[in-house]
């Protein structure tokens, strides 16, 4: 794996965000309240994500309990856990299979940056292969932090215009990651 340019998140908040039409707002609110996650849980953070689904934290309150393991139906890719270099192409494939609009939540130190595993086999942050919207720190993060991250995703979703996914910036972003626009 060569040197990959790091892209700093997805710039939505300060882009078109302020010119939302009413339709954008309504659809944004609808989308934000019905984010179906695809838990790409590989390791420890996956257990904390299970804890988030459990009774004590209940991610269902945000309308997020319907997990869709099929990428076609998912809106949010929750990457929780270490992504090794062997797994990176699969992660990218899953991301590509997801239907627009899609968001990515990177949960935990391993997914965000490799964390403690600065080793030959671990990808140093998933933002080297797919664009990440929200980072959740912690190893593993508490369910509170995961919920916090989801709420940040909701904020992002609400402020996104319907046209963003067709915009040139977005196409450019995908191109940077060498993702083909379906």
């Amino acid at each position, binding site marked *: 794996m060569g040197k990959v340019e790091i892209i700093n998140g997805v710039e939505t908040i300060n882009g078109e965000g302020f010119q939302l039409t009413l339709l954008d707002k309504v659809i944004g609110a609808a989308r934000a309240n019905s984010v179906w996650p695809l838990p790409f849980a590989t390791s420890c953070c996956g257990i904390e994500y299970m804890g988030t689904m459990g009774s004590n934290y209940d991610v269902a309150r945000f309308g997020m309990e319907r997990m869709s393991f099929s990428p076609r139906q998912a809106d949010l890719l929750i990457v929780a856990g270490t992504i090794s270099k062997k797994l990176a192409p699969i992660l990218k494939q899953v991301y590509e299979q997801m239907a627009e609009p899609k968001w990515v939540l990177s949960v935990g*130190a391993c997914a*965000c940056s490799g*964390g403690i595993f600065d080793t030959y086999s671990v990808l140093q942050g998933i933002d080297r292969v797919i664009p990440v919207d*929200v980072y959740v720190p912690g190893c593993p993060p508490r369910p509170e*932090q995961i919920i916090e991250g989801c709420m940040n995703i909701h904020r992002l979703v609400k402020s996104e215009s319907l046209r963003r996914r067709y915009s040139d910036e977005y196409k450019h972003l995908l191109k940077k990651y060498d993702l083909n626009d379906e």
Partner: protein
Amino acid sequence: MESLSNRKKVVSNKKMTFMEKLYFPAILGGMWITFKHLFKKHNTVKYPEVKREFAPVYRGQHVLKRDEEGRENCTACGLCAVACPAEAITMTSEERKKGEEHLYREEKYAATYEINMLRCIFCGLCEEACPKEAIFLTDRLVPTYFERNDFIYGKDKLVEPVDQRVDISKRQLTGKRPA
């Protein structure tokens, strides 16, 4: 195979009684259990509004402490960086100049002190390593951000403000430093 420990006991019983073969008793029993839970008080902590209580020793966001006079405790000895398994701490040290005694307690201080919160695994080893009672983990949580760079916590976010002290007195690791 003979018993290795003389303590074994077969626990699985695969023979079904007639009642169990009928499906219904167990099904109704199970449904009765779930039905009772319908009326139980829910166990959920509505997170953003209600916050769950953390243990006082919880290992959350770090704080760089000041002493009672508001001087920074850190002397930039670098033990925390060495102790960090994730190699998330970086710092540069500088000599204290004249007239800065009210800012820094020791002769040397950390000019920059950065923790990469995305790397950090919150293991608490830096807190244990610190010989100057400077760095502590607190029960605050590191928030989530949209951008990667936001997670590099410099001194602006780590050093406790003079007027907003962070209470770490309940952490049992705290030794009483003699005056």
